[in-house]
């Protein structure tokens, strides 16, 4: 987020838009304005074509056959581990476990690390602005072990109260789990500081990176977190694939998550020897095309430069914030100083669901609802919000369309 402002020559949003075929379609007779990127991003040709090429030319199971196609597929699949390693600056490919997505990554840690290392009387700390996927697995772990869940409170602006967090930390704290960026408010959390504070009490740290990876340069060694997990589909890749990064020593000491093929070295009815990292955690045939296409997505992002994308999105965030604040009856929920390009808002006298329907008629896609963060909605005493979330291909003109669309909402509701 400290990148230089993008020069128009360097950042050609129109050229980028041409890489995303869906952006040229219309919805209800209007050009699509896609502002639901925190739910899922659209896919560039590089990703779509990679999936097609895999199925047309390379399809075979991985780590199995000696035949030509199996070797091609295995190489393509395994090369993504190196791509991910570089993208997040992990130390080794052994630290990169492929998963079905962020949720599976969190559940894997809660199950494989948690059941072994958490006991009655221990405490797990999460924050008040977590997505349900970073709440429920920890609740389940607490129920199974007798541990207690503690919550870092949040300010009215949507920033975690680190003084309160400091008070929660103790020798009982076994694990701290926070999102890198909030899907509902956009707040970017100081994950490095949060990790350092947890470390001082001997706790491990899990970062839910679902909203981090699309907007930020990720350096897991710099953050020094123990686990970092994300989904491909939030970063222009396909649904169904994702990554769990874990420090090698921790992964090594953890029991497997699921049993099956590929995660074993040898099986007899008396004894099974588990495979080495990272395969120990990858039972069964994975989403091979999904992983390969995730690699294509990360390569695509790298070709544009995540700092350039972040700068472009930050410009959109500032512009959209200013334009939306011009609307009298509109209130933005989440005004942290450090924000990803996500704007949650409420409109006095109009329920977000009605806003969503009316904007949809204008071809504008936003998310309305509780954003899988019901405790957060309760914190702000609102049932739901409308949420516009931006990606590398959005434009100021689309922000203008959103503002005009909200004008229509006010017209209908008077």
């Amino acid at each position, binding site marked *: 987020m400290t990148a230089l402002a993008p020069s128009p020559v360097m950042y050609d949003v129109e050229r980028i838009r041409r890489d995303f075929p869906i952006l040229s379609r219309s919805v209800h007779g209007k050009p699509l304005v896609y502002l639901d990127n925190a739910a899922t991003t659209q896919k560039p040709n590089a990703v779509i074509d990679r999936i097609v090429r895999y199925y047309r030319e390379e399809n075979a199971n991985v780590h199995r056959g000696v035949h030509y196609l199996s070797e091609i597929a295995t190489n393509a699949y395994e090369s993504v581990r190196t791509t991910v390693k570089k993208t997040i600056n992990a130390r080794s490919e052994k630290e990169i476990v492929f998963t079905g997505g962020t949720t599976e990554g969190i559940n894997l840690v809660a199950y494989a690390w948690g059941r072994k290392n958490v006991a009655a009387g221990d405490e797990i700390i999460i924050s008040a602005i977590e997505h349900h996927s970073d709440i429920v697995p920890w609740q389940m772990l607490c129920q199974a072990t007798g541990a207690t869940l503690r919550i870092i409170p949040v300010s009215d602006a949507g920033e975690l109260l680190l003084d309160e967090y400091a008070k929660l930390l103790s020798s009982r704290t076994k694990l701290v789990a926070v999102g890198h960026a909030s899907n509902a408010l956009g707040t970017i959390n100081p994950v490095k500081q949060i990790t350092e504070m947890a470390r001082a009490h001997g706790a491990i740290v899990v970062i839910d990176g679902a909203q981090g990876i699309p907007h930020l340069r990720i350096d897991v060694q710099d953050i020094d977190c123990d686990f970092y997990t994300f989904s491909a589909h939030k970063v222009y890749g396909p649904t169904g694939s994702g990554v769990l990064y874990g420090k090698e020593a921790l992964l090594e000491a953890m029991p497997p998550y699921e049993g099956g093929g590929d995660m074993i070295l040898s099986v007899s009815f008396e004894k099974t020897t588990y495979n080495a990292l990272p395969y120990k955690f990858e039972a069964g045939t994975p989403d091979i095309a999904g992983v390969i296409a995730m690699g294509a997505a990360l390569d695509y992002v790298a070709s544009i430069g995540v700092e350039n994308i972040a700068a472009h999105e930050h410009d959109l965030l500032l512009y959209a914030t200013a334009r939306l604040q011009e609307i009298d009856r509109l209130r933005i929920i989440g005004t942290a100083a450090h924000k990803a390009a996500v704007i949650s808002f409420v409109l006095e006298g109009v329920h977000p669901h009605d806003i969503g329907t009316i904007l949809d008629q204008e071809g504008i896609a936003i998310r309305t609802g509780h954003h899988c963060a019901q405790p957060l*909605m309760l914190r702000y005493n609102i049932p739901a919000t409308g949420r516009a979330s931006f990606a590398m291909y959005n434009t100021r003109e689309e922000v203008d369309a959103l503002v005009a669309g909200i004008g229509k909402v006010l017209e209908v509701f008077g």
Partner: protein
Amino acid sequence: MSDLRELYQQVILDHNKNPRNFRELPEATKKVEGYNPLCGDHYTIYLDVDGDTIRDVGFTGSGCAISKSSASVMTQTIKGKSKEEAERLFNVFHKLVTGEPGDTSTAELGRLAAFSGVSEFPARVKCATLAWHTMRGALEGKEVISTE
């Protein structure tokens, strides 16, 4: 805008702004919560049932314009009716908002006709039917109704 005006008809906007029977019913014999977790719509329906007759009905809660106006119109529609009649009206309304052909004339539909536009918006059918499902659940003796 034409489709939108079909959906957000004047009756709906009016009932959203000034919901009728929007109150707790201290003498209620049945009280049921209706909840749509997807959008957070949340209502409580109060029924004062005397034998077979719905003597009075009220509701509280919050949600979108479609769900709130639907609850409001429902309270007016079923007040004073028999349980059997309320069940029949449930079916009439359900057909109307899901676009199923029904044999009820517009005149007979009365205020309910304002919800005919909902059938063009499948994502909003649950909003329109939440209060109705809740009312029906109350008559069946349930305590919490979820339309998710």
